[in-house]
């Protein structure tokens, strides 16, 4: 049976992993390659790296990070942040990423999803959506790190993204991000019910129960989190034991207890 995935997310700025709260007050935490190795050994199923810097010379530092990560880990990882063109995607995949996650660039020009899917296959094109509640059960898409409201409906955008060629969706709830009060179950479920591609829930993990809720009630295929893992508040092996006890299928390796 297909396992639900646990996905640590690493925000990278000038070659270092950082963690902010609601995208602000960013704090330095660790070396991305060391952290990637640690999570790989701890039982993470996949990793996500976001380049949160923008300038082009820093982009090259980031590509070095991608290449170093690819050399050190044997699990899939996706890369996002600052992806603006099919060329950017090509460079990132060449550096060793398995998937590329596209956010603002797809909102500005959705054709990038189609062009990229045609060229590299849908399996490596992830549509990342930052969504914020505007009324009950209605969420709108935000871009530019959660600063700009696009006025687009998040569910419709997810469905459109799938049609255009995205192979997976990361749904990040801006309202719950960094609060550690749980994922946005309604938003995640609404997205999961409307698309037929895997959905990764993001934003709000604080306890192990939050993970089981979003994987069960939220209908997510994977749960992404950052600070609970970075600060050692949740141990991935223990999380997997907990999920397993709650009848959620999770992956194990022979050497794990």
């Amino acid at each position, binding site marked *: 049976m*297909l396992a639900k995935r646990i996905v640590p997310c690493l925000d990278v700025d000038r070659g270092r992993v950082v963690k902010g709260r609601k995208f602000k007050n960013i704090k330095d935490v660790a070396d991305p390659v060391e952290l990637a190795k640690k999570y790989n050994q701890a039982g993470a199923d996949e990793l996500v790296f976001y380049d949160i810097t923008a300038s082009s010379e820093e982009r090259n530092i980031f590509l070095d990070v991608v290449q170093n990560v690819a050399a050190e880990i044997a*699990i899939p990882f996706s890369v996002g942040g600052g992806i603006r063109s099919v060329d950017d995607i090509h460079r990132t995949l060449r550096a060793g990423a*398995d998937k590329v996650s596209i956010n603002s660039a797809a909102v500005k020009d959705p054709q990038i999803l189609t062009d990229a899917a045609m060229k590299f296959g849908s399996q490596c094109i992830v549509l990342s959506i930052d969504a914020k509640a505007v009324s009950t059960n209605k969420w709108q898409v935000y871009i530019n790190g959660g600063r700009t409201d696009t006025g687009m409906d998040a569910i419709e955008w997810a469905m459109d993204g799938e049609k255009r060629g995205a192979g997976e969706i990361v749904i990040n709830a801006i309202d719950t991000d960094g609060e550690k009060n749980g994922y946005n179950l309604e938003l995640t479920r609404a997205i999961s019910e409307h698309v037929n591609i895997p959905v990764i829930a993001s934003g709000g993990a604080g306890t192990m129960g939050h993970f089981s809720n979003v994987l069960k009630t939220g209908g997510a295929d994977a749960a992404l989190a950052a600070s609970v893992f970075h600060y050692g508040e949740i141990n991935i092996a223990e999380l997997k034991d907990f999920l397993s006890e709650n009848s959620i299928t999770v992956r194990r*390796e022979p050497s794990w207890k």
Partner: protein
Amino acid sequence: MIAIIDYGAGNIKSLQFACQRIGLDTCLTTDIPTIKQSAAIILPGVGAFKDAMDALRRHNLVGTITEEASAGKPILGICLGMQLFYEHSFENGNWQGLGLLQGNVSLLPDSVKVPHMGWNTLKHHQRNAILNAINQKAYVYFVHSYAVTDNQKEDLISSSEYGRTVPAIVQSKNITGMQFHPEKSGETGLQLLKNFGEMVS
């Protein structure tokens, strides 16, 4: 030395890194003499079946791979690379494959989310050296929308369930295929690559 055929398919750097980590000497190449001198061949692949076959033809590699296969050289096909071993693929048409193995390639059923993306378990059907130290129900990482069908029963080493039975590891003599990505399948995947390495003299 193992020749990894570099015909523009997906993330082959990870495959090379994984081989490096378990001590397998590899090179990325499309050079026919290099491929002929190699001890084994890995045919990777991500993308569309037709594009991949076109790329192999463009590099004049169809004959080389077929000849090396019939000469008994160990060949490992990964993901689309495994699918290319079969006779036909019905991926948006009807395309001829390398025909090294009997069977075809068809779309996964729409009762499940396609692509089949993530970690799924193996179910072994026979004892085989490629499964050395690989437990029943070991997890491996899949990313694919099409899968082998109508294969010879005796070629099926291990399978996975996803909407239907998905041939996960197949083997006929010197030809081995893995539908998942061993280079992305953690410890289990590295062990499988190591097992393939053991078949290379």
